[in-house]
């Protein structure tokens, strides 16, 4: 058969920073030991200009101490065999200009990306329940043809209609940079800004300017409050030197608001703030392969999402976005019928390395971002010592009493539901309508298979492209989509994906809307309402990030620790929202002490990751965050990063050690509140400051 092409990763993640500089998104998975000689864990971003050199302590900030952006790197792979199963029999191969495929030499590769941010022309994350209360229901809010209320309703004055399809809403409330294209043969930097002309790849395989494309940025429509600078760009893209791969860098972490009578609206909500914009974005990544003979081929597209900074890139989420995506594909899209075929298959042999160990490593890594007591740290570290040769029942005498059994989203009242059993693992807050986090049903099944001695050490490896797909998603937050950090509950909706995966398309591809740029009209918004969960409308640029917090800053600040929602009767204990990806407490490098005898570094005291002026309070449920959301908008760039000690050089010619994951590059200059080990409790009497500013 003719070869075909795919962009990998299928979904990749850029992250905002306030620097022009960047590093490359990780291409290894957090929690995966990537260098057994040094003990280096995966998940670290990559130094620009290198194939896979992990960043060090010195790479998080630029010379001006600004936070570097994380750029997403995309590669092009050629496949020769039809994909009928996952993993594919054909591992594929990365291709570049000059390579020969099916006897034809590749002359050029043209990459095209379209970034947009539709957060303000979308639905709120909270919906109104039957009792008139605001609740987070996740995807349940979209069932039975329902939706949550719209953001920026007419009543706010920011729109003339509550209809998302209203052209005025689609014009003013959507940030749309339009498409940009770059080619390997004549590389350039394409900016997703308001001052360059969009261009795209036409039917002839040529990069074509489209001056009629109706780009849209907030300052074109409103008088804006721009405390971090105007949102006049969503980033840029360019060709990586010598490889022909595409690098996409996103926004700068800005948040801006529509002024009314010269004033911005108050930034009071954790996740839905009408009138506010941020500069996150998402959109399709397309590649056109041009051969020497003049023929062309379109690759299966990828997708780029630009989101929050990665403050703890090596801490794996016990439930990652991958785990939710994989669970969806296993249970609903027949990805691996040997695992699930009208039910989980009890004779399936789980793979210890891929299915079991990542969960144990994730558990072990949580301690670096949280205030776990030593007894809990011991337990988590013990999990990470389990090997395939161990008797599972000797290592975990009571599996079912230790691991929380999952139940489907929105089924809190299901029989034998364990959502509210706080003593079980994972020890973190749950998804919408669930008190506590549970592993996915697929994870639980695979862990159970291991526990019943139905497992092998490892199985057929993924192809390189498949591994890139998996790694990117494994480095993102799953399980608790309230709304989350990178993506949200939409990853569990089969409508998000191209479902005919046993084809050239393959699994995990966003169900992209075809966009006919030649027909763009300057006076009419180009993008439609687009994807809505549980409907079959295809996915446009901006349709993924629109379900995230507006702006992202408020959600990040808020989601340190909370009581569960719903809160089990009588409970006051606080749990972590996103313990892997939103560090609550850290071991700063500056607090470490050197042991001259052993020539190793000792950890010092725990501090809050977000600390200092504006954060301090005796109320545990409010510690480790700014009391005023706007303070985080102004100070998000000060938050430090957690990195393995191997990446932190010391003055003794060595480093801080693979056993330590320490905070570096924090710009906070005070220690802040005393960190007490878990458990901590919610206390009555907290009053929010009344002088919070915007």
């Amino acid at each position: 058969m003719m070869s075909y092409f795919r962009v990998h990763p299928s979904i990749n993640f850029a992250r905002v920073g306030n620097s022009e500089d960047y590093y490359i998104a990780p291409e290894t998975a957090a929690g995966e030991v990537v260098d057994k000689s040094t003990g280096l864990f995966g998940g670290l971003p990559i130094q620009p200009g290198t194939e896979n050199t992990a960043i060090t302590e010195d790479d998080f900030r630029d010379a001006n101490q600004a936070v570097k952006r994380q750029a997403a790197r995309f590669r092009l792979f050629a496949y020769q065999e039809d994909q009928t199963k996952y993993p594919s029999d054909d591992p594929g191969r990365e291709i570049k200009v000059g390579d020969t495929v099916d006897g034809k030499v590749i002359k050029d590769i043209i990459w095209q990306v379209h970034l947009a941010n539709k957060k303000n022309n979308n639905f709120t994350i909270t919906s109104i329940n039957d009792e008139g209360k605001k609740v987070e229901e996740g995807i349940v809010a979209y069932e039975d043809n329902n939706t949550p209320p719209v953001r920026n309703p007419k009543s706010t004055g920011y729109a003339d209609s509550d209809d998302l399809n209203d052209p005025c809403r689609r014009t003013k409330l959507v940030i749309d940079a339009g498409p940009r294209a770059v080619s390997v043969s004549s590389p350039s930097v394409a900016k997703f800004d308001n001052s360059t002309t969009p261009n795209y790849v036409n039917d002839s395989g040529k990069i074509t300017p489209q001056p009629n494309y109706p780009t849209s940025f907030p300052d074109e429509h409103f008088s804006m409050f721009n405390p971090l600078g105007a949102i006049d760009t969503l980033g840029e893209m360019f060709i990586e030197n010598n490889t022909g791969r595409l690098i996409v860098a996103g926004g700068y972490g800005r948040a801006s608001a529509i002024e009314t009578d010269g004033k911005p609206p108050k930034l009071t909500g954790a996740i839905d703030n009408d009138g506010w914009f941020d500069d996150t974005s998402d959109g399709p990544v397309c590649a056109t392969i041009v051969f020497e003979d003049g023929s062309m081929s379109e690759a299966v597209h990828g997708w780029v999402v630009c989101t929050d900074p990665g403050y703890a890139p090596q801490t794996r989420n016990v439930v990652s976005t991958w785990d939710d995506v994989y669970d969806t594909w296993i249970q609903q899209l027949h990805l691996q019928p040997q695992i699930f075929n009208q039910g989980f298959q009890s004779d399936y042999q789980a793979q210890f390395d891929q299915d079991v160990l990542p969960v144990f490593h994730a558990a072990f890594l949580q301690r670096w971002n949280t205030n776990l007591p030593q007894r809990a740290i011991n337990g988590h570290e013990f999990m990470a010592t389990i090997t395939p040769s161990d008797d599972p029942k000797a290592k975990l005498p009571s599996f079912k009493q230790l691991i929380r059994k999952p139940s489907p989203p929105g089924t809190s009242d299901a029989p034998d539901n364990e959502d509210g059993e706080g003593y079980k693992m994972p020890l973190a807050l749950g998804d919408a309508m669930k008190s506590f986090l549970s592993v996915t049903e697929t994870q639980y099944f695979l862990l159970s298979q291991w526990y019943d001695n139905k497992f092998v050490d490892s199985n057929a490896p993924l192809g390189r492209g498949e591994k890139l797909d998996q790694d990117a998603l494994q480095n993102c937050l799953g399980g608790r989509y309230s709304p989350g950090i990178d993506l949200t509950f939409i990853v569990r909706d089969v409508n998000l994906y191209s479902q005919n995966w046993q084809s050239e398309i393959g699994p995990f591809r966003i169900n992209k809307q075809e966009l006919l740029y030649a027909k763009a009209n300057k006076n009419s918004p180009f993008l439609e309402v687009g994807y809505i969960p549980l409907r079959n409308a295809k996915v446009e640029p901006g349709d993924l990030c629109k379900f995230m917090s507006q702006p992202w800053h408020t959600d990040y600040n808020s989601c340190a620790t909370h009581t569960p929602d719903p809160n089990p009767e009588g409970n006051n204990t606080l749990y972590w929202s996103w313990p892997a990806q939103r560090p609550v407490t850290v071991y700063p490098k500056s607090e470490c002490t050197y042991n001259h005898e052993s020539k190793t570094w000792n950890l010092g005291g725990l501090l809050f990751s977000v600390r200092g002026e504006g954060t301090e309070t005796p109320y545990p449920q409010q510690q480790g965050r700014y009391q005023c959301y706007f303070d985080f908008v102004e100070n998000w760039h000060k938050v430090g990063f957690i990195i393995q000690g191997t990446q932190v050089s010391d003055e003794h010619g060595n480093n801080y050690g693979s056993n330590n994951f320490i905070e570096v590059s924090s710009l906070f200059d005070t220690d802040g509140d005393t960190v007490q080990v878990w458990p901590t409790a919610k206390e009555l009497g907290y009053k929010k400051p009344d002088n919070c500013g915007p």
Partner: protein
Amino acid sequence: MISYQPLKKITQLSVITTGLLFTHASFADQCPALEEWFPHSQTPRPNDAAFSSSSNCEFHQWSWQMFLWLTQEEDGMPRFLSFNSPQSLLGMEHRGFLPRMTKSPGTESFDEYLQAGTDGIFVDHNGKAVYYSQYINSTFENFITSNQLTDPANVRSMDPTTAFPIDGTKGALELKASWKIVDSDDEVSDMFTMETTVAKLENKNGKIVINPDKSKSVTVALVGFHIGGIVEGHPEMIWATFEHKRNAPDVPHGTTLGQVVSTDDYTFYTAGTKLGDCNVNAAASNLTLNQRKQTLSPITQACRQYAFGNAKGVNTSNTESIQTINASVYSQLDSSSVWRNYFEVGAIWFLEQNALEPGMNLATDSFTAPSGRSVNLTGSLKLSNATIETFTQRQTTMDNCFRCHNTAQEFPPKMTLEPLPATNLNISHAFQNIYFWSQENQNNN
């Protein structure tokens, strides 16, 4: 070498009015201390086999009678000091108040300076760490020995429903005491004191640890006392706790973190301290040790979050039982007895008899056991000792004895050891420690 001072005879006590103690004498009929317990020198040991679970009061009577019997002078010292430590079962050195250095934090043990569960260090107002010691009685010892449970393989092969026994009339007991180091200007005339040695603290590998090779002689004063004991129908043990009356103020109901708890000084509380500054566990964040002076900073301000171990309006009959028996004991103890200055904070047990099962996490007060049986905790549902569980009085996940004393499986404190399966005996942390220590001994041999 440990030396004990004779029990001090107190002629006149200055009683601080806390609202806690020695009030409601008119309720004495509801839950009296029995005349046969007095004088203290003749308090009989409770008959654990005859326990009938007939009333809430019976549990508090058992608690007080046991406290009196354990503190009864025997050979010039309170009886409990003659009991062995858990590690003595393994032939490990009994070192008075020397905390073990060979064990990782996380396992409670004889003579510790770390509070269970949180690794908190309770710092008195002289900057000195409060120390802890544990004891077991002969029934406990004989049970472990006769069943050879110092061999971890026997623990793993044991019927997990095996419970601690009552040997004749004597149920298994495990005890924990808290001790404040007495400085020269401390007023301790109303506390039981004795001389002993404690290991010095030192800074090591970024942590504050004890050095068993460096000890010092000190006078210590008893400030808190736990009793966990088996009685007929209660394999989960009755868990009772006692404190010295001047330890800490009760937190008035509804107090917020910004409000002052009391205008009086206590041993571990400075008048005018706000609730937000009480019970702050600084150990993980900013606790520092002056190794030369053997002082820690910051000091701990202690407050008792729940008087008699219950929130206001909850189990009021339990509270009345405790108040009345406290008053009744006080009225019948010799006026010169130092033990008049200690009071029962509360006690907690299962409402249902013989309900203990392996795999109970006891995370909530009412729950369905693995067998499907409904089980309820009762008595003092938020029972903590302000000197032993200082830092976990409020958090619902750790706010009574059973939150940590349960029958769930337990991970080891060291990676080289095997976990403890879920068994009924896990209710005892002494048992848990013995299981892990015995593995370490095997590994070391």
